[in-house]
């Protein structure tokens, strides 16, 4: 008997008596859904170490980015709304992103409960961009915020995308004496810029 069949047979023999699967109710109802908009998202994200930038007064993305990241030399953008100076088409293998100072992506939506952003390989262009870049700027349409994590998991990306991440602030660690440090292995900072999705 193959290992596979042996394990399955042993599991089938040992399983406890069948228990029904309970349905999941929608927990967030009524005004809890009303309150769960962009402001709630921004507050939750900041608690997780993320930042929220004010939309630029002059309506120019380029000037907003220049103001936010005056030091950034290598900028790689995965959204057509911004031109960086390291085009994704120049990336042969993910490790080529090693020297990227700033990655720019657009998220599908935000989650008010946790401050999370949903990103897939389509949003990241090259998946590693969300982790190798030193800093990450995320454009988010303020109208695209779902109330809670249950809503987030109803998105079709979980069935169709190769890869889905709920990213909630920058990478972090507290493995040494519980001291919270942002910029563990992934991005050192994550900033959300509220910016409506351009029309089709």
């Amino acid at each position: 008997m193959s290992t596979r069949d042996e394990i399955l047979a042993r599991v089938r023999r040992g399983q406890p008596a069948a228990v029904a699967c309970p349905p999941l109710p929608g927990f967030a109802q009524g005004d809890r859904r009303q309150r769960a908009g962009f402001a709630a998202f921004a507050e939750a994200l900041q608690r997780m170490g993320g930042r929220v930038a004010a939309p630029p007064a002059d309506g120019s993305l380029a000037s907003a980015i220049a103001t936010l990241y005056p030091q950034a030399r290598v900028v790689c953008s995965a959204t057509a709304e911004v031109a960086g100076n390291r085009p994704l088409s120049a990336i042969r293998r993910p490790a080529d992103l090693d020297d990227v100072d700033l990655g720019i992506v657009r998220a599908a939506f935000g989650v008010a409960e946790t401050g999370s952003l949903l990103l897939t390989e389509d949003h990241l262009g090259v998946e590693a961009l969300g982790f190798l870049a030193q800093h990450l700027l995320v454009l988010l349409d303020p109208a695209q915020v779902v109330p809670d994590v249950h809503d987030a998991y109803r998105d079709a990306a979980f069935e169709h995308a190769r890869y889905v991440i709920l990213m909630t602030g920058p990478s972090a660690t507290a493995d040494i004496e519980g001291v919270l440090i942002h910029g563990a292995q992934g991005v050192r900072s994550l900033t959300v810029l509220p910016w409506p999705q351009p029309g089709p």
Partner: protein
Amino acid sequence: MSTPIDHAEASSGFIAAKDHLEFHDRRLWDLRCKRDRATAAIPEWESMRELASAIKAHTLSHLADYLEQFERAAQANGATVHWARDAAEHNQIVHEILAARGARTLVKSKSMLTDECEMRPFLEQRGISVIETDLGERIQQLDDEPPSHIVVPAVHKLRGDVAAVFARTLGTDPDDDDPHRLAEAQRRTTRPSFLSADAGMTGANFAVAQTGAIVVCTNEGNADLSVHLPRLYIASVGIEKLLPRTEHVALFVRMLSRSALGSPITQMTSHFRVPRPGTEMHIVLVDNGRSERLAMPAFWPSLKCIRCGACMNTCPVYRRSGGLSYGSTYSGPIGVIIDPAYDLRKYSALPFASTLNGSCTAVCPVKIDIHDQIFRWRQVIAQRQVLPFAKRQAMKMAGRLMASPRLFRAAVEAAGAGAEHLPRVMLYNRFNAWGRQREVPAAPAMTFRQWWLKNRAAARDEGQP
């Protein structure tokens, strides 16, 4: 035959290091308090625990079907699925995958399963360099020590210890124990490994039967770097990690980090389903004693565990003895009920490393009856005569006393009177574990029974409440 772990003896070194002990106790209690605040903010928290427990029970009671469904979905996604009976077969499979592709370097995120299988030494003996990329797990690897906690592997170390380990192994300044600079040193020295590794590896927090997705929760982003850079990705998954559908992941994701660290979610909650074009994804489904545990009527609920560590953080014995003293990958209350199923003789002392206060059960997000299981393991151990001699004799004596109200009363009264007058050596000697590290409290002037007879018995006889 395995040597039994003497938990009390093993913890004596930890207890002797006073600074470490106090910090450990405080740090883990702080995690417990953060967990309390996070869960109190969710009105539906208790219904979520009920649901999570029931969904796990449902999944485990249909586990064979869900494993087959997961396998079909993963294969349809383009992943290769392997099955491992035990740790040895797991290590063999991983080695074969790596060796067949000439892979010499492996970057990996934290996986208790690979620690359980002792995979790292197995691969290293075969010429494969394995780099742990979680900061805590890396500290432990460089110090050649197993993790002491399933969520915070180096929680028993102070910053000075980390500075010493890094100075020895990474060449940092031994006098610089600033946590920010130590973390930066690890980031700087690990990054080249991410960029050049031949293969990457993760464990799994959850595996979704419906979609074949592997869900990995980290704060450092190291799992994503381990997967997204190399051309080969291997996920090691215990068979109990399955969840039926994507919607169920939502419930468990809401509970995991709140229970573990008191944060609403981990910074990265990643779902790996389909390999990138031109790369390979392998999933190793590991039994290693799990199917056997599933067949134990009293102990199968321990398979519901989502490895949040809340039971460890709340446990007074764990906080004051340190994870390494349990001699197993799984320590604290969850270790106490899992480990004896692997090796009853080796871990026969662990179910006694508990006060049975029930706090572990109260915080468990999937409502495992942890303290009841601890008690049941004690019964199994007593029945199988694997109790140490002194404990067996003490229990026999206690059993005789407690079976007779007359003897019990006489003993209690005599002990109360006696403790004050006995020479210290009678109480604080090496045969009396209770006399180590603690003072016997002063006995009250009268026993409860004496107090009851004086104050209440008369009232009861007069028909008053």
